[in-house]
């Protein structure tokens, strides 16, 4: 195993499925003909277009069925969930005259937060909800932020870092009662929890293929019939004029199959994958001192575990794990683009002393018990070794005379 050249069947243990997932071989197989034989354009009026158009129709039905959408035409294929999120925010502001406010949370994905930032510098007013130390929202606060100028309320269904599941069905109901459009970024929720959109008041929903064992480069925006809508991408009449650009046929076909497989495997996630996640969690908490689970343990996706290891820095843990070919991710500053720990940890007021040492393990239906056992076998010594290097680890505290201060490992300080 070359730990700097890992992939499916190249060894290595992939516990970073909230970042992206392995493409299911059945998905690849279904895509093949549309990468070779069926190259036609779905908009063409000749025999080359027919099989392609049929394939897209079938995929649309598969996705609609997966989401519990009432009509297949409520499904719009996009290039990724980021595009879907951008479209939802953009459309809500452009399609509703006199409404310029958006209600959202500080723990959203950058696809929402950065877009909101941009929109706010162009006149939109963004109202952020608060989250508790466990990342939970206050429904009353949500309701209090809705008014006649609110164009859209957008709340993620599940959080990518903690796995926290948000009560979007209830939130959508509240928004509906106030005449406010509701969007949810469901990237981390679909394929992990059952979704039945026709029973909800959700107007728009985004998700992407590559988080559910389809390839990158394809996403979905669900738009409920009757929802005011303006396209984000303008051009041809594809997707009933709601998303211009020639359809990415092989990927759409792949996404359709991935959705069908995801629906079949929902129970696997809630039973077998959950059991593995719980085993990993119990194993870590019982063998490693001074660590805790972040987020809301009671309400989170079954595949996600986010643990904060005190006194050690996340990137160092990831590097050590990678030596064993184990892949996870961290909310620490050093492993991100910025020098700050993740915005999710900061929004939840996780002290910086712990936020720098957060590691997210995210499993999938391809994760095996053997892989979890191997991880549990190496992790305690990794943490112990790094702690032995750390000046904050009390056991190894030096007895140096005349030192006028010491590192405060228990600092609860949070920078402004």
């Amino acid at each position, binding site marked *: 195993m070359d730990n*700097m050249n890992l992939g499916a069947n190249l060894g290595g243990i992939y516990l970073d499925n909230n970042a992206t997932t392995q493409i299911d071989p059945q998905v690849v197989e279904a895509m093949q003909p549309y990468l070779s034989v069926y190259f036609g354009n779905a908009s063409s009026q000749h025999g080359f277009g027919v099989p392609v158009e049929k394939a897209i129709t079938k995929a649309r039905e598969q996705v609609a069925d997966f989401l519990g959408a009432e009509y297949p035409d409520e499904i719009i294929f996009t290039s990724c969930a980021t595009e879907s999120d951008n479209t939802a925010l953009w459309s809500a502001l452009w399609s509703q005259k006199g409404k310029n406010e958006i209600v959202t949370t500080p723990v959203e994905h950058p696809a929402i937060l950065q877009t909101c930032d941009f929109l*706010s510098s162009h*006149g939109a*007013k963004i109202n952020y909800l608060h989250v508790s130390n466990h990342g939970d929202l206050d429904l009353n606060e949500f309701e209090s932020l809705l008014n006649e100028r609110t164009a859209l309320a957008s709340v993620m269904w599940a959080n990518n870092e903690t796995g926290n599941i948000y009560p979007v069905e209830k939130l959508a109901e509240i928004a509906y009662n106030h005449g406010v459009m509701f969007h949810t970024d469901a990237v981390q929720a679909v394929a992990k929890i059952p979704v039945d959109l026709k029973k909800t008041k959700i107007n728009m929903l985004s998700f992407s293929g590559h988080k559910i064992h389809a390839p990158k480069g394809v996403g979905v925006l669900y738009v409920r019939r009757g929802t005011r809508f303006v396209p984000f991408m303008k051009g041809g009449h594809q997707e009933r004029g709601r998303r211009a650009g020639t359809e990415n046929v092989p990927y759409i076909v792949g996404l359709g199959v991935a959705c069908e497989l995801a629906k079949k495997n929902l129970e696997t996630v809630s039973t077998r994958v959950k059991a593995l996640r719980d085993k990993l969690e119990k194993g870590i908490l019982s063998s490693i001192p001074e660590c805790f689970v972040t987020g809301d343990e009671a309400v989170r996706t079954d595949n996600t575990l986010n643990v904060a290891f005190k*006194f*050690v*820095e*996340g*990137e*160092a843990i990831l*590097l*050590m794990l990678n*030596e064993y070919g184990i892949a996870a991710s961290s909310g*620490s*500053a*050093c*492993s991100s683009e*910025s*020098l*700050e*720990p993740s915005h999710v940890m900061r929004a939840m007021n996780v002290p*910086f*002393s712990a936020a*720098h040492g957060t590691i997210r393990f995210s499993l999938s239906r391809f994760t095996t018990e053997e892989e979890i056992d191997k991880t549990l076998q190496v992790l305690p010594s990794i943490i112990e070794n790094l702690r*032995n*290097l*750390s*000046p*904050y680890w009390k056991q*190894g*505290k*030096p*007895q*140096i005379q005349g*030192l*006028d*201060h010491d*590192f*405060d*490992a228990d*600092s609860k*300080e949070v*920078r*402004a």
Partner: protein
Amino acid sequence: MWDYSDKVKDHFLHPRNARVIEDANAVGDVGSIICGDALRLMLKIDPTTEVIEDAAFQTYGCGSAIASSSALTEMLKGKTLKEAEKITNQEIVDYLGGLPPEKMHCSVMGREALDAAIANYHGLSYENSHDDGELVCHCFGVGVNKIKKAVWENHLTTVEEVTNYTKAGGGCGSCKMRIEEIIDEVWVDLEKCGVPRPGHVPTPIPSITITTSTAPNTGFSSISTVTSATAASSSVQASIDEKTVNSPIYKDVKEILETITKGFTDGSKVELVSINGASVTVKLEGNIATNPMMKDMTVGFVKQKLSDGTGRAIDLIVK
């Protein structure tokens, strides 16, 4: 993925001298758990020869922080204090076969720990033995002197590089303008020392004539830019009363109005006259002042922008 050299990986996976020297007589502590990295450097120095007999570290931080600490202790062993004092952060980087740009601050932290340990050896505390100067980056507590030193020693030219070396500007980003000024200031001196500034084209400010400035004309192009920029801001401030300048919303209002003015393509201008509490008086120039419809639209727009930007209900008065 991490772009670490083999040497960095080696020092991270097999750190040298990662232990406690119980009878160390020079200890340097830098960083904090809040900032995400911290280093304790322990040295045992022979008081008669001032030779570093032993060096060890404890580090909380990422892979490159641990590798930089490990490398530093290896470099220090056997050196005299005088020799050790001359070690620069770049030498730590070179020893490791390079560091990714965004990890340069790890080598700076090593250099700082060395300063702190030497101060401790002389019976001084690091805080008292060096002067941070004006606090520039409030997020990471970085002072002007640290930034100047990093720019001076490593010939940094951009804010991004300063962030990579010192972390300054890596949080909220509100100090980036100030960092730009500091870079310019240091480069004036560097150019005096004969270091050419790479790719620097000074921004001309045509409306200001340098002859009014009392600064000596040393013939360096960047000086004229800096001087004229200062002159520009002071000349603007001269026409605004003290109450306005001291208003808590002055900076925001000034910035917003400047941004709006920049947005006009027809040469129109919105100029700040005064601020009194939440009431802002402005002067309009150009098309937006003469065309009644444009004027109405502009006034509404400016009022909205100012209210949004300052978080107050702004009362806009047009002079």
